[in-house]
């Protein structure tokens, strides 16, 4: 079936989002260059929500356009995660951009580039072809480079952007180099055909297939910041505007996981036994390094970067231990939990660090007295990130843990538990600042604007509800046949 005879209605959400992104951009340049444009932010959020509804409506039946663009439950759930994530990031940004300190940021362009990034991520998670996948990845990456440098008169922001561009470009080159060998050995860029050819190719050219796998792992590993490809994350997270940091640590990372699963399970699934152990070792190193280095951090954004690295390690564990649908169940559940708890935490962090003007951990001093609701919500998010009971993070981690035990990787499960215990220490440092320290003398009560209130409340509700009733989504996930699109 060629692309032209295909059922193009499968692409409805992407087409609508693309049109709305261009509409947002057009409205922006028709309303002048400068000034605050809260309506554009609201319009962007609305576009994302409309697209999310369309994803639910149109993507519920599986199908594919010429086996290039595929729609399956996996793509649908990841698209929903991306769209909701970006919508929440934009809600956080609306407050951030209204502040006097960030007046230099062009608001309309900021929102439209964020919508383009969401579009790229959507194309990426639902493509089953190396070229389409790469283009989606690059739309996301190039938009992220730009967003990181959007505070263009702030030196840390531009420094972060240049660093991200250089290392991100190198990572793209690694991915492409790996892909070029896959193409050369199979004569096709379709992941399905590559997947069929891989077992035989592995017999014949073990070294080159492994080389191609490792090059791609290095490149994708950079995008999701796993050790040893994480060096960019702390510096970029620290320098970038805080909502962009939230975007990078949630949307960019989870979309990266989406394609890792797609490429490695679909393309390299036939030789799973050969690479699972490599992933397991990398997951172990990532959990250990991320958590231990986080202990030494005093800057909130750097701490969240290392915490994000450690979380990427937890998310990699099921990739290494459980093959097939159950493994994807675990990853998707933890992704939903990670989305909610991290974005909630970043909403609070944005509000507090922008209010005090510093991203040092001491800016959280006495938050309980300044804004009790925020302090309690933040505590729940941190407890969930650390993986204590009654939170979504706990259920996700426990699920992954039992998967690792069942997959006969007990050592990995033990490393996971030990490093989670270590993570209590740095998350507890936050909680101590909020509840046991007095606010600094000139800090007043913190006003919480409506958009922030929404983000915090939604993430709080989801984190707690999934912690108590995980069956609500797990039952749905169990009925999915994740990657069946043909």
């Amino acid at each position: 079936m060629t692309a032209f005879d295909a059922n193009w209605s499968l692409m409805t959400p992407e087409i609508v989002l693309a049109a709305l992104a261009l509409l947002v951009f057009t409205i922006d340049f028709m309303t002048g260059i400068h000034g605050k444009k809260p309506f554009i932010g609201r319009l962007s959020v609305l576009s994302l929500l409309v697209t999310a509804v369309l994803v639910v409506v149109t993507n519920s039946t599986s199908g594919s356009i010429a086996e290039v663009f595929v729609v399956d439950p996996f793509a649908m759930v990841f698209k929903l995660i991306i769209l909701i994530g970006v919508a929440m990031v934009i809600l956080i940004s609306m407050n951030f951009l209204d502040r006097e300190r960030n007046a230099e940021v062009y608001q309309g362009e900021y929102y439209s580039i964020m919508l383009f990034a969401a579009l790229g991520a959507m194309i990426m998670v639902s493509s089953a072809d190396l070229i389409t996948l790469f283009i989606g990845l690059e739309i996301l990456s190039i938009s992220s480079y730009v967003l990181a440098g959007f505070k263009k008169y702030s030196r840390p922001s531009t420094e972060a952007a240049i660093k991200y561009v250089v290392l991100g470009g190198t990572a793209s080159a690694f991915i492409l180099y790996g892909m070029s060998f896959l193409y050369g050995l199979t004569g096709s860029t379709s992941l399905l055909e590559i997947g069929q050819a891989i077992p035989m190719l592995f017999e014949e050219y073990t070294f080159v297939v492994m080389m191609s796998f490792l090059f791609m792992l290095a490149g994708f590993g950079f995008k999701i910041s796993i050790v040893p490809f994480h060096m960019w994350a702390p510096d970029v997270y620290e320098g970038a505007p805080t909502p962009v940091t939230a975007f990078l640590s949630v949307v960019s990372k989870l979309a990266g996981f989406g394609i890792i699963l797609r490429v490695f399970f679909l393309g390299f699934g036939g030789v799973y036994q050969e690479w699972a152990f490599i992933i397991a070792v990398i997951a172990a190193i990532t959990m250990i390094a991320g958590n231990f280095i986080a202990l030494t951090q005093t800057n909130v954004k750097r701490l969240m970067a290392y915490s994000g690295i450690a979380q990427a390690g937890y998310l990699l564990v099921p990739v290494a231990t459980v093959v097939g649908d159950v493994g994807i169940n675990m990853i998707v559940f933890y992704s939903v939990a990670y989305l909610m708890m991290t974005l909630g935490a970043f909403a609070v962090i944005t509000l507090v660090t922008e209010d005090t003007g510093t991203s040092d951990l001491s800016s959280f001093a006495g938050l309980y007295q300044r804004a009790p609701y925020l302090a309690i919500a933040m505590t729940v998010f941190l407890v969930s990130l650390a993986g204590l009971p009654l939170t979504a993070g706990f259920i996700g981690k426990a699920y992954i843990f039992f998967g690792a035990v069942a997959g006969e990787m007990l050592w990995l499960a033990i490393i996971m538990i030990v490093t989670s215990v270590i993570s209590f220490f740095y998350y507890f440092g936050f909680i101590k600042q909020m509840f046991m320290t007095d606010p600094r003398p000139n800090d007043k009560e913190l006003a919480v604007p409506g958009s922030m209130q929404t983000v915090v409340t939604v993430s709080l509700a989801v984190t707690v509800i999934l912690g108590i009733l995980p069956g609500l989504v797990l039952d749905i996930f169990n009925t999915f046949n994740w990657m069946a699109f043909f």
Partner: protein
Amino acid sequence: MTGQMIFFIIFALIAITGAVLIIALKRISHRVVSMAFSFMAVAALYFLLGAEFIGIIQIMVYVGAITILFVFGMMMTDHRNFSFGPDPRKWQQALSFVGVATLLGLMLYGISTLDMHESTQPFVGSVEAIGLELYGHYFIAFLGSAFLLTSALIGAIVIARKEAD
């Protein structure tokens, strides 16, 4: 030794020399020129492979557009002292060299293990075939690259724009 082999060796040597000079030369303008030579030699290799269209695009985009872009970048920034951190120490350079050399050794070993029954007659892809693939099977990627360029365009203008105060 066939004529093709001789041309391959000549162009490969130019490409590698150009690439080494990008790293080794002192003056930045010389480095950018050696980059242009390297890219030109790569374009010649594409002609040798029978991929004329890609060769022409390579000359237009890399030798033309991107080289000019870098020349502008070089001129718009003070190109003498504008760089990442201090120069890396000797041991760092040595470590990078050993690391990259090991990687190269492994890659070359891997390539040498490839024992492929290759076609004797090169496959010549016409522009028509490329067009049909591009607008047929890879139509989504093509549309995607339109959004990629839009996003890059908006971003580059916003970031590099200098406000008239």
